[in-house]
């Protein structure tokens, strides 16, 4: 699913955060969020996906139906999620 390097801990946090979702929901959510995170990293000129890329992708690009669940799950794994759901829409 990845097409560029990710911070190792960050990748694990993403896997942990999504692992309790039903597989059919998770596949779509992961595809979107991974692609968006990598785009944001490239836009920053970085060759490594880092937390700010993933948080931005989660807050703005996760499919609406799974957005709240994704943000909650990432926050549970210790990420700094600041946007409210309304702001993220």
């Amino acid at each position, binding site marked *: *699913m990845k097409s560029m390097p990710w911070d190792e801990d960050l990748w*694990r946090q993403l*896997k*942990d955060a*999504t*692992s*309790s*979702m*039903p*597989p059919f929901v*998770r*596949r779509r959510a*992961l595809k979107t969020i991974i692609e968006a995170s990598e785009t944001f990293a490239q836009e920053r000129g970085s060759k490594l996906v880092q937390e700010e890329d993933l948080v931005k992708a989660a807050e703005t690009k996760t499919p609406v139906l799974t957005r*709240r*669940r994704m943000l*909650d799950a990432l*926050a*549970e*794994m210790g990420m700094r999620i600041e946007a409210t759901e309304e702001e993220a829409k």
Partner: protein
Amino acid sequence: MKTAAPTLVSFAVTRECNLKCRHCYSQSVDSPHPRELNTAEARRLISQIAEAEARILILDGGEPLMRPDIFELVRHSQSVGLTTVMGTNGTLITAEVATKLVEAGIQALAISLDGTDAETHDTFRGVEGVWEQTLRGIENVRQADIPFQIAPTLRHGSWEQWGPIADKAKEWGATAVEVFDYIPVGRGEENPEFEMTVEERRAFVREYVARQRAEEEMVYRCVAMPQLWVEVEKTVPEDEVLTKFVRSCCAAGTRYCCVLYEGTVYPCMLLQEKAGDVREQSFVDIWQNSEVFQVLRDRDRLEGKCGRCDYRYVCGGARCRVYAKTGSLTAEDDACWFSEEELKR
């Protein structure tokens, strides 16, 4: 930080049940609890669960279909935006009941089945003839096109039946098989001989992982055995983990809680430490502020091997088993079979 909303809340709508299951966590009997929440109170609770931004409400019991206003409660749950599912023994689901469930808006059912033969199922469920009734119920659910999953309980000496049960579930068109480990709580305390050994758990986990890897359609989930995820991470290629397996960490008080028929709130149906009472506080208040939930949400408070474990955020040990055996919410789960070295990530 804002408290995360519960993903799942179960509401045991009644203590009344037509079976006498050997493991019943809610000590169900043939009559309702004298202080059972009435219809208005039950509706208010369901509204509060929706206000807490829960996504899924499980109506169970006892046997939820014993409650006369159950269809009204399903309708109300739907109307406040909750995905509404029901845990049932299936024996009361006639064609007419299945139709009424559809009309009320039920979205899925979990049906308990504990054997591939009548004797195994009926002995565990405490009433002769219920295996046949359950199979008829499943057939009526299929005819009504209600999505359903099959829920067996693993027991010492007969845990291997879960595989053939899963095969039947697939044949019947179930969407999932949700396997429960036997935890000696409620009436289950009287029958500790059903608890599996650590070796049986390890054998089950190996079989579970192999089955899920080979399965393309149906999802397996496992309740009260969170170490399963450690095995998955250690033995399954990452692509398969990401696309096939569902993590079943102990969600008690973190993403899940349970409300009993008389209003007591517990972290889990299997972890019966009182977190509050919906007759005294709102559900939202209990979910956000209960001290019991605060303890369970902080995995850094876990002790012993669980506290030192790198998997504590995705496993955390079966808090229900720990509590049943020690009375502690944070002690280590001594049923974990991994060595300290294996628990480094």
